[in-house]
């Protein structure tokens, strides 16, 4: 390498290093125990919300029935829960709290909570241990399971049928790890997994025969298929396996070590449960008259005793 080209590369390297170290040290400061900067998430998001009178919520916009567009409006279970929680939050913040949405995607929902860019995120986030290592979760406010959607043309399928078959999953979802864990625990051959950018694309690929099954949270998969005009069920065009390979619990994502904020959100959810508002919202989206009923079963919130 000539001296001249070395000279050319040196400034590039130095800038790259500044970038790298800059972001490293910033990351360190963020997670460190210094209580200096007031608007850092470590200062307690509750205090920030109290001071600013606004709560910033990361909201998903691409998954029915949690957050999607209906006749142009942003609607969904997560959207309604976010609005209800923000209303309950006013009692704990002791002042009016303005709700602000920031749109997040499956790729950014965890990172933005981690960095504090959003105070909390409702984007059908499954509570998993791996995610819990990066952010914290409130108590579950939604329950679902994960099965595999398949074409009914060739009859009913059990989970074991998908061993060695091609199964699609949604990018940045936890299904990928869970399906592999389940299949290897059963001693079955692992399915060949194929990643899709969005649910609609995966379901279209399934209908076209490009993949044998498509998986993600059952409620999202079924609702997306039904919104796409497909009939889902034993007598429909598509069906979902009876057995589920994983449970899904939805939690509100909050930043790590932010105990008072997490408590407050838990109390808000509990208040919603006790006042019956939660069930009203739940029934709107998952009740018997909804598009795709999902009975609560034995799932319930267990509010802490006051006193």
């Amino acid at each position, binding site marked *: 390498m000539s001296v001249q080209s070395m000279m050319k590369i040196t*400034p590039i390297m130095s800038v*790259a290093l500044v970038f790298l170290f800059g972001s490293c040290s910033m990351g360190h400061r963020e997670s460190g125990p210094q209580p200096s900067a007031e608007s*850092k998430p470590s200062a307690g998001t509750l205090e920030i919300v109290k001071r600013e009178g606004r709560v910033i919520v990361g909201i998903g916009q691409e998954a029915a029935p949690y957050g999607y567009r209906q006749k142009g409006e942003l609607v969904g279970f997560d959207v309604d829960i976010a609005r209800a929680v923000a209303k309950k939050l006013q009692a704990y913040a002791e002042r009016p709290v303005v709700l602000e949405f920031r*749109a997040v995607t499956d790729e950014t929902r965890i990172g933005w909570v981690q960095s504090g860019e959003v105070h909390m995120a409702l984007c059908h986030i499954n509570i998993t241990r791996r995610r819990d290592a990066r952010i914290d979760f409130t108590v579950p406010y939604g329950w679902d399971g994960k099965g595999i959607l398949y074409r009914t043309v060739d009859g009913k399928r059990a989970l074991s049928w998908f061993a060695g078959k091609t199964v699609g999953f949604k990018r940045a979802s936890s299904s990928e790890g869970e399906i592999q864990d389940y299949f290897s625990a059963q001693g079955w051959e692992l399915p060949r997994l194929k990643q899709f950018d969005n649910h*609609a694309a995966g379901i279209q690929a399934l209908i076209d025969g490009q993949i044998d099954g498509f998986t993600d949270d059952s409620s999202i998969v079924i609702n997306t298929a039904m919104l796409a005009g497909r009939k889902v069920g034993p007598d429909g065009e598509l069906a979902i396996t009876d057995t589920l390979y994983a449970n899904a619990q939805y939690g509100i994502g909050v930043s790590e070590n932010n105990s008072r904020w997490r408590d407050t959100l838990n109390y808000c959810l509990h208040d919603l449960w006790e006042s019956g508002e939660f069930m009203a919202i739940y029934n709107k989206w998952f009740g018997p008259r909804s598009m795709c009923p999902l009975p609560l079963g034995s799932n319930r919130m267990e509010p802490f005793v006051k006193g």
Partner: protein
Amino acid sequence: MTLWELFRVLWVGYPAPPEMMDPAFPVFFQRIGGLSLTLVITVMSLGIGFPLGCLLALCRREAGEGGRRSFVGRLVSRGIRSAASGFVEVVRGLPIMLLVLLVFHLPYRVAQWRAPGIILAVTAFSFYAGAYFAEVIRSGFRAVPQGLIGSGQVLGLRPMQIFMKIELPLALRAMLPDFINLAVTVFKDTSTLAVVAVAELTYTGRQLLMSQPLNYGLVLLLVLFLYWAPACLVSSMLVPRCDGGVKFRNFLGWRMLSRNRVKASANV
């Protein structure tokens, strides 16, 4: 949903819910979506990116030249040149997706500043366009034969006259097709913004598919068409008009110029 309605949604996007509006910023920028937002981001990024690119190219070209400066002067100009090269090389070296993620992440990390998506998007693509503009401009000026500059000097033209009368017109002609290429590239690359939920065309298309019983292939084709049509229009209508540049190249002979052109366009 009729085809017309479909086009309308892809053109204006979905309305942002009231909770998403930030009163500190103009409502117009926060309300638009779809293809119109894609176009606004493209035009604004190119508008900001062009002066930025000129500045960067100028820094890389001018700073560090001139032998009669003091030691400190040389050090400063070398610093400016390195900074400009560093910026250009870093931005060109990053995948556009990473650049977008960085620009969306760092303002909050560094300054606790939450800006609406469109402003961050324009920032990211201005950096992107600026870095590539700088390279296009630099290669354009390098394509001007030294002999012509020399003959200008022999004729006794002042440096400014040489720049305005010889370098700039010739360089501009050489650059023009690359400018259009860059504009089309920026326009198409804005689709990466779907990852950070900026409601541009790709994201709107994704939302549309998630909410309505539509023919998947049809929507995909429509989105493709909406990306393809403006890009095609621009390149087919504007490129023939730059044949001045092409003639100029033929005049000088392809071999000499194409070396520079390949260098510039390989990265565009």
